Structures are given as structure tokens and as C-alpha cells.
């Protein structure tokens, strides 16, 4: 770890005022980990963990979740479990209880990839060091993305929570020097393109203060399915957050987001529209999944993810629709 300056912000205004060029520290489960292996090397760390941003409440038809609410607090919150069960399931499928106790919603929104090359200073990585090359591309790609990839980066987005929030069409509230704004979660994460080092649409000194999850009949039907190499404490090979609303035997509305397969949480509007008005059957869901995976770019070790992601999506959609599998 390199030497850095440590400061603690007394309030949000102060954090924003002195946030430029600093790394905000909340739970530290990701930032400190990456600082220890010298992948992230901020000169200044600004501790925001004691700000009053941990509240979780159901207000104005939405779950208002403070950025410093812990993953555990959100996952075990009664309103979350009732109104957006898919979000609770996604959080509980990630990391370990110890990590979930420390990790925060704000931090989780900005969780860095688990690409093994990104974390290994002995290899080349465009995300870590722009234009240095990517050793993952022709290397061990089992855990890498098949959607949203570029010829600069194939690192998979790691967060389970973000996948669920995307399916729930959450809005991310940020405060910056220019004031407050809301970012649709689908626009928070950037595709790698030619600049995999640019990961988020946040502007300098912008601090995430909370997340707003609209609560409706669809959110209440949300479910999360995660396939991984062991039962706990493993990143997704493929995951899916799905929400399906059925009326009179036909799908009224449906959304699903994929995890483990994209460079960011992945949704395909056309796939979702394809289900509208159709019966909630395996065929309907399989067709939607097929559309969602169009354009997938499989590599040697992750080719199986294309089929696995489809099956995972079908499972999540079936569960959400309450259809017999």
C-alpha cells in the first residue's frame, strides 16, 4: 500500500467540497482491498463512512436507501424483503456475512471488477493501466464477460446488487459541486469501449448519497437467481434479476437484468418487450433469453456462459412469474 492522506468528512457538503481527487471510503471492503495490492493508489482517502446516510425507508412509492446502508441492513430490511425481494436475494447471494456487514450500498454500486488480471500487477491490464494491453483477452476467461466487451477489455461487472437494482430501474442520487442529480442505474456504469479505465458516469467529487427503488407490483415479484462454482462466496458465472407481472394469463410487464456475463449489468429492452402479452411459459421466457444473449462474444473458457445465462434467465423469469418449472 502506498502512503496516502486520510481525512474524514463531517457532512456531505464537506465531502463534496474536498472530494475532488480523493477516494471516498465507506465500508472499505473493495477500496482497501485494492489499495493493499496497489491496484488503486489514491493519494487522498476521504472517509465518508460516518455520514448520516444509512437510512432505509419506504416513502413516496419508493424504497429510499441511504448510500451508507450496509448490504446486510438492506437485505434484511422487512420492507425490502416484502416490496423488492429480488434485491434482498441478490444482496444475500453476494460475498460473505462479514463482508455484507461492512459493505455499503454506495460502495457496492462502484464495486470494481474481479478480473484476475486487473488484480495482478504482474500482468497487463487496460483498465488498471490505460493502453498497456490486456492479458485476459487470450488468457483465462472463465470469469469474464461475453456481453458489452470491447477489444480493450472483457472484465465482468461483479456486483449482484447492481443487477437487481437495474431490473428494478433504480435511480442513483449523487451530490456534486454542481448540486444534486439522479442517474438511472443503467447509466451509472460505462461500457469499456476504448477506455476501460473510465468505469462510471460520475463527475469529479460527486458522492453517491442514496438509491431510489420504485416500488410497484413488478418490484414485488422480483426474484434473483445466481449460478456459481460453489454455494456461497463466489462470483456469478451467470445471474439474473427478473420481475414479471402476469394478468389474466398474459404477461403485462416484464423486466430482467443479467449478471456475470456483461461488462456492466445487462438489459435488453427488445427481449423484455418480446414477452408482453404472451403467456408466462418456458417458451416465452426462452425466446426473451435468446434475444438478450444476441451479440454475445464467447471465448475459449466462457463459451458456456451463453447457454448458462439463457437458462438462468429462464429460471428467474419462471420463478418471478410463479410458473411451474
Amino acid at each position, binding site marked *: *500500500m*502506498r502512503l496516502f492522506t486520510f481525512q474524514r468528512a463531517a457532512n456531505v457538503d464537506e465531502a463534496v467540497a474536498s472530494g475532488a481527487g480523493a477516494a471516498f471510503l465507506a465500508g472499505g471492503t473493495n477500496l482497501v482491498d485494492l489499495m493493499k495490492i*496497489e491496484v488503486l493508489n489514491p493519494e487522498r482517502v476521504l472517509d465518508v463512512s460516518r455520514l448520516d446516510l444509512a437510512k432505509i425507508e419506504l416513502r413516496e412509492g419508493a424504497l429510499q436507501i441511504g448510500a451508507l446502508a450496509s448490504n446486510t441492513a438492506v437485505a434484511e430490511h422487512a420492507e425490502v424483503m416484502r416490496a423488492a425481494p429480488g434485491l434482498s436475494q441478490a444482496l444475500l447471494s453476494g460475498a*460473505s456475512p462479514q463482508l455484507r456487514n461492512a459493505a455499503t450500498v454506495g460502495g457496492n454500486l462502484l464495486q470494481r471488477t*474481479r478480473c*484476475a*488480471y486487473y*488484480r*495482478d*500487477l*504482474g*500482468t497487463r491490464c487496460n483498465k488498471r493501466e490505460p493502453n498497456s494491453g490486456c*492479458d485476459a483477452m*487470450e*488468457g*483465462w476467461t*472463465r*470469469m469474464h464477460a461475453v456481453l458489452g466487451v470491447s477489444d480493450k477489455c472483457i472484465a465482468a461487472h461483479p456486483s449482484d446488487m447492481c443487477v437487481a437494482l437495474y431490473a428494478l430501474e433504480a435511480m442513483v442520487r449523487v451530490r456534486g459541486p454542481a448540486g444534486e442529480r439522479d442517474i438511472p442505474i443503467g447509466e451509472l456504469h460505462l461500457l469499456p469501449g476504448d477506455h476501460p479505465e473510465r468505469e462510471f458516469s460520475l463527475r469529479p467529487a460527486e458522492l453517491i448519497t442514496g438509491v431510489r427503488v420504485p416500488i410497484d407490483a413488478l418490484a414485488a415479484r422480483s426474484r434473483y*437467481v445466481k*449460478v*456459481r*462454482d*460453489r*454455494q*456461497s*462466496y*463466489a*462470483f456469478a*458465472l451467470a445471474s439474473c434479476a427478473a420481475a414479471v407481472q402476469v394478468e389474466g394469463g398474459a404477461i403485462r410487464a416484464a423486466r430482467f437484468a443479467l449478471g456475470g456475463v456483461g461488462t456492466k449489468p445487462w438489459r435488453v429492452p427488445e427481449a423484455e418487450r418480446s414477452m408482453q402479452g404472451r403467456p408466462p411459459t418456458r417458451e416465452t421466457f426462452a425466446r426473451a433469453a435468446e434475444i438478450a444473449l444476441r451479440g454475445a462474444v464467447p471465448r475459449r473458457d466462457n463459451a*458456456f456462459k451463453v*447457454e*448458462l445465462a439463457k*437458462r*438462468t434467465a*429462464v*429460471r428467474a423469469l419462471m420463478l418471478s412469474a410463479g410458473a411451474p*418449472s
Partner: protein
Amino acid sequence: MSDEIGKPYPRRDGRAKVTGEAVYSYEWPVPGILYGVLVTSNLAKGRITAVDSAAAEREPGVIAVLTPFNAMKLPGGAKPADTGDRVVQVLQDDQILYSNQPVAVAIADTFERALHAAAQVRVSAQALPFTVRMADELHAAFPHDIRTSAGSQPADQLRGDVEAALRRAEHKVEADYETPPETHNPLEPHATLAVWSGDRLTLYDATQGIFGVRKKLAKAFALPPGNVRVITKYVGGGFGCKGSAWSHVVIAALAAKQLGRPVKIALTRPQMFGIVGGRPQTQQKISAAADKDGRLIALRHETVSTTSRFDDFIEPAALVSRHQYQCENIETKHRLVRLDIGTPTYMRAPGESSGSFALESAIDELAHELGIDPIDFRLKNYAETDPIEGKPFSSKSLRRCYELGAERFGWQKRTRRPELVLRAGKLVGTGMATAAYPANYTKASAIARMNPDGTVLVQSGAVDIGGGTYTVMAQVAAETLGVPYEKVKFDLGDTEMPEAPRSGGSITAASVASAVEAACRALRQKLDAMGERPRKPVEALGEVAPSEERKKYALHSFGAQFAEVEVDPDLGMVRVTRLVGAFAAGRILNASLARSQFMGGMVWGIGMALHEHSVYDEKLGRIMTRDLADYHVPSHKDVVIVDPIFIPVEKDDVVDPAGVKGIGEIGITGAAAAIGNAVFNATGKRVRALPITPDKLL
């Protein structure tokens, strides 16, 4: 006082370990200590042309960066002290032989500063062509004799005419099996603290064998062994990787000598992958045939395993086929291929765990082909004597293990045809396998002392790698001397004590218990001769060694593993919902600790079956699963019911004086096969390459 042996006493080191009182090797309070962190190579092969340590040396607190260009030359050289001792890379030359090889060491006044300094060191090297792919070197595979705790054995063995038997066989299985490279990851990484006083060296080392470390260090520094003292009071897991003195041990002593201050080095987690061994990859081919009555008439087991360019380690995976089943025609072959990797080493049941996966899967395949219950098939081919050498078994309770395990597991309720049982949307399957491991025993010594206050101190230079040596040896001493267990203290882990073997090959309990018994018997005789309570401490030494009689027998522990799995039919995820193991391993010294040992082995069997894989990037020649998030071992949720049972006393007067067969390794043998067989029973899919990950079942 009597019947202390076998009692389920809690482990004596347990409290110290869970409260943090236990002082591990890295933690010995030594004044003036310096912290070393290794710099390791990014290249898999090459020659170091320069090491730029200027930036590192400018950092606060950095004392030195030692490289091949400025490190002292070892007076005794870096060559191994004896066969079985590993070749190490200790800054003596400019060669890079594998990725992650130590190429320098940064020394600073704190661990954090040394870690950061190590990251600042830039190594320039001329890259050379390499390969870490077994397929690239199969053409150059060569036979190599097998060296285990039981001694040396030939690479190849043939009894009868396998080819002819295969030709006339009515039922046959010919299949290829693969086990991946795996890496040990004890919670305590390798760590060494080196303190010089003149020409005397004291090492606090996380090792499974203090005398081997002493020998190697004495040789490297051209010292009489008596000048090197090795102390190891607690080990946070060994599993084979701590069975050798690896590069960092020598480098710590070198740095301490050169800098004139104590130096300690602990490996970081990513440094565990390559420098300190691992289970080598194996490719195994089994050809097995049976006649129409289900009698095994041919068994051929060919295995290839990987080793480094510069050292020989062989995973003797086909050994298991030499002893497991009665068969007139048995052929076994061992081959090695050299790759540009760090030298592999012993990992829990080296050979028996990987080999039993292949053999016990093939036996299951043959039973399925014959339509015979897998236990019945094994009973039809039960070896009453060693199938190749014809020797009687010193004891063998495998039949009883099948019975006990089957009953405990509920094997009779099994559905033989695959893909028939669904539970909550999951396919359910069951499978079983035979477990076996050699009953190793070697020379050992111990000293027992009776104090005037009635307390007893017994010492032996063994180590306790978690198996419970501190506890069980006190039990053996108490029973042999006829004194209360509480009055006996057993101490270990110091080369000043009587010599004991390296704790590997499940050898410690058998060997050290026999030595402790001998010491205590000698002490008892002395005390009885004195007739009165001693006013001064009275001591007696016990030394034991294998008898000639032992050579007339085949000596093994046996067991039977039973697994139940649930498989998601669409998503391929496997969960082992139940694992039952029934074992017979001589006299059990402590029922509670034995249960833990068996259980630990079985849990590792789950990991071997479903999770563990050191994945190489073939283009970089580098292991990329370099931490415990990428290198998977079972999580709690993967371990549902693990249920070991055992025969408390399997009488065996031959195996060793204490009648003990070690149990450190048998728990993993057969476990992966039982799980794979259960996956087949659940899904109809036979996965012959471990680990069984979801993609293989889609």
C-alpha cells in the same frame, strides 16, 4: 489412568489457538527483527538481466533489497540436502524457472513497508520460450520411480497378461480421467523467522518437519547440523506443502546472515501459488474388464503427472490399483512430464486421492455396465491378500466399513438407474467408493521424564500440524505410565528434542506414539526398580524403528465413502447433501480428534470433487487463481452433512508397536470418486475431469 487411549479429550492447543495465545512461527517476539517480502517473477522463464531497486530503497524504513546480484553466496550451495528435499531458488543465479519464482527480497523495518518496497522493485529479464501445458510435453513423458513415505517403488508393475484379458472380456471400461493442478492453502501461509548468533542459526519455521529444515539449512550454510536449531510450536495447517524447506526459508536465513539482524518472511497469499508446491495435474487412463459374473479380470492404470524442469516430484496415482482389488492381471504405469512450473509436492494423500478418483470412478462405471450394485461388485473382487505381492494384510476391515457405511447412509434405498429421483426440483443421486491409504511407520524417538512432584514431561521433536499430536501423545504416555492424563505434559517442535519424522504420509501418530510408549515403558521400569517416589527427575529415552516382520505384510487403512448429491437439472450446480465415511485405521488414539481428521479429509474431498483448480494462463505460464476468492475451496454452505464413523479399535499387532495407522489422509481418498459417482447416478452424466463445475453438466 488406564484406558486413556481413545478417549475424546479436547485438543490441548485448542484454547491457545482460538484465543490468540498460541505463538506461531512468524510471531516469536525477537528484538530487532526485520521484515522480508519476496519479489517474485512475472515471467515463466528467462534470465534476469537487471534488478532496479532504487525506488524501493528510497522508501522510508527500507533496509535492503537483496537480488541475485548482491545476495551473499551460500557456502554450502543451494542444492538439495538429500533426495526428497526440494530444489530451491534462493538468489544464487539469474535464472527464472517458473512464474512467481522468488527473484529478490525487500527488507524493511515493518511488514507494510517491506510489502510496498517489494512492489517497487523492477526486474528486467530476457524471456525464454516455455510451456505449462501438459499436452505440449506428453511426447517426452518418461517413467520415474515412486518415492513415498513407504519407500521407493518401481514406476511400472505388471502381473499377468492384461492385454489378453482385455481382449476376451465381456464387459469393459476404458476411460480417461483428469485431475487438475491444485494448491494447498493453509490459513497460516508459509513463514520463517531466522536468528543468527555467531555461526549458530535458530529458525522459527512453519514446517511439518523440523529435522529436514535443519538438515537443509546446515548444508546451505556449511554448518554442522548441531549449529542449526529449528523450533515449531504451532502450525496453522500443513497438508504437505510445509513438508519441505522451500526457497523463502533459505532466503530468510541468508538475509539475516547478510544483514546481521533477525529477518522474518511470510508468503503473501498469491505467493502460495507456485513457490511452495501443489498437487500436480494428472491424466489417467484406466482399462478395466470383468467377466459375466462380475469378476475383475483386467485392470490397467496408466498415469502421467507434471513436474518442474529442475526437480522430480511424482504423484503416484496408479499405486492405488496395485492394492485395491483382487485381479489376476494388473498393470500400472507412472510417467512424468516436465513443464516450466514450480515443483509440485505432496498434497493430502498424494497419489491415493487423485488415483482413487480414476480407479473408483472406473469401478463404478464397470459396475453400472454389469448392472451390479457397486458394493456387491467391490465385494466380489475383495482382495483377501495383496493382489500383486500376495502378502497378507496386517489387518483389513474393509468389509466391515462397507457394512457400517451402507447402513449409516441408507444405501439399500438407492435407485440404481440414473435420473430417477427428484427432490424440490433437483436431481438426487448417490454414489460410493473405496478409501485406502498405506499405514506408514518409521523410526522415531522420545524422552519421558518423571518429576518428583508426580508430573510427567514427554518430549519428541515432532510437530502438531493440527492433527492433535500434543493431546494424543499425552494420552499414550498417561496410559503407558499409569498416571493421570492431567499430570502429563507432552512437548514438541524443537530440534533439541529426540528426533521424530516429518509429519507427512500419515506417519506421526503411528511412529511417535510407538516412541512415546517405548520411552514411558522404559521410564516405568526404572521407576519400578527404584521402588519409591524419585527425589530427582528420572528420565528414559524411547527409540523405535520398523521391524523386519512388517515387511511380510501389506499394511493399509481402509474405508468406504458414501455421497448423496443434489444437482440442478438446468443450471448444473451440484451440492453434496450428505457424505458418510466409514473407516478402520488400527487403534484410534482420540475419538474426537480422529473424527475431526476424517471430517477434514472428507470436506477436502468435496473441494477436490467440485471446486479446487489452480488455473494456469498458458500464455503467461502463470497461475491466475491466486487468492481464496478465485481459488475455491468448499464454503460452509457446500458442506451440509459430513458424517465420519470409524472402528475404535481395529486390532493390528504388526503395523507398529502402538497398533496405530495414521488417519491424516485416508479421509480424502475415494471421496471425490464417491461424489462423481453420485453425480452420475443423479444425472446420467459421467464427468471424468475434475472439478465438476456447472458448465460440465449443462
